[in-house]
């Protein structure tokens, strides 16, 4: 059984490790302070911090795609924009 067909690369491996680390971190955070700090934000429905992480990640994906389609291949700015967006989500949603 070989997994060479999965064609891992360093950037994609780092990407998935980051996601995994985020999920583990959320789990640990939730373990020590359960309940997920639910609140009703600007979107007018209740979110926990897990929901906020999901909204941040999904939104970032679309920000990257939009940047790629509209501006160009230099994604560092898209990443910066996503971080600003994520902070905004955690602060206000």
């Amino acid at each position, binding site marked *: *059984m*070989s*997994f060479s*067909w*999965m064609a891992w690369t360093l950037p994609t491996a780092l990407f998935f490790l980051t996601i995994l680390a985020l999920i583990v971190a*959320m*789990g640990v955070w*939730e*373990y020590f302070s*359960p309940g997920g700090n639910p609140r009703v934000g600007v979107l007018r429905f209740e979110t*926990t911090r*897990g*929901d906020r992480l*999901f909204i941040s990640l999904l939104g970032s994906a679309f920000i990257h795609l939009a940047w790629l389609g509209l501006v160009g291949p230099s994604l560092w700015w898209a990443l910066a924009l996503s971080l600003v967006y994520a902070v905004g989500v955690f602060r206000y949603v």
Partner: protein
Amino acid sequence: MNAQAKTRNLSWIVPTLYILFLLLPIYWLVNMSFKTNTEITATFTLIPQAPTLRNYQVIFTDPAWYSGYINSIIYVVLNTVISVTAALPAAYAFSRYRFLGDKHLFFWLLTNRMAPPAVFALPFFQLYSAFGLIDTHIAVAIAHCLFNVPLAVWILEGFMSGVPKEIDETAYIDGYSFPKFFVKIFMPLIASGIGVAAFFCFMFSWVELLIARTLTTTDAKPIAATMTRTVSASGMDWGVLAAAGVLTIIPGALVIWFVRNYIAKGFALGRV
């Protein structure tokens, strides 16, 4: 009052027309399956003029045809058993307990139900090749779990939430262990839910083709895929194609008949 009586008298028209519309293409398929190929292509007849069973005979005597049915039924049944068995404890956990990340886990399960199979077709082939599972029934059965397990969990959770929690607590006080309680007391209570979940697993595994076709070549090829291949090879044998189509409708029709009293409930996923 008079007007109301009138509408009540007329209300049967809408479902009747709709059912006629549903049955018309099926009627045409059945009609064709009893015709010879010359009658199909040369003339236009609403009922077979020289009814023949030749088309069905072709299917039941040629292993390339009937093994397709056997393959389909094997992996559909395997998938139904695996899906429901795995979903039962999970649905119980979701309906009775809160735990770390439960809501997000539930959402993640559902997203797999909604993912387009086309996205998974290629990596599935690679993945199951790596495990040496290509062209086996179990490969298709496991692959179909991707969308059937979340569905089964969702349906069962709905039914289980309808069972009062006091029943669990009473059983534990009476000295039942968890497995014994689950099998002896709890499962009979949600028997209809298990039936509905099994029905939906059967249904979605039976109708799916893209993944089943990707993962099989000959030994486990589903009937639906056999149909497309054999027809193009033998140069449009319309009669046999129609007969094969009719035979794929029959298992579904039988299953619906058995669960007819739960269908409406199941379609609402026990959550209305």
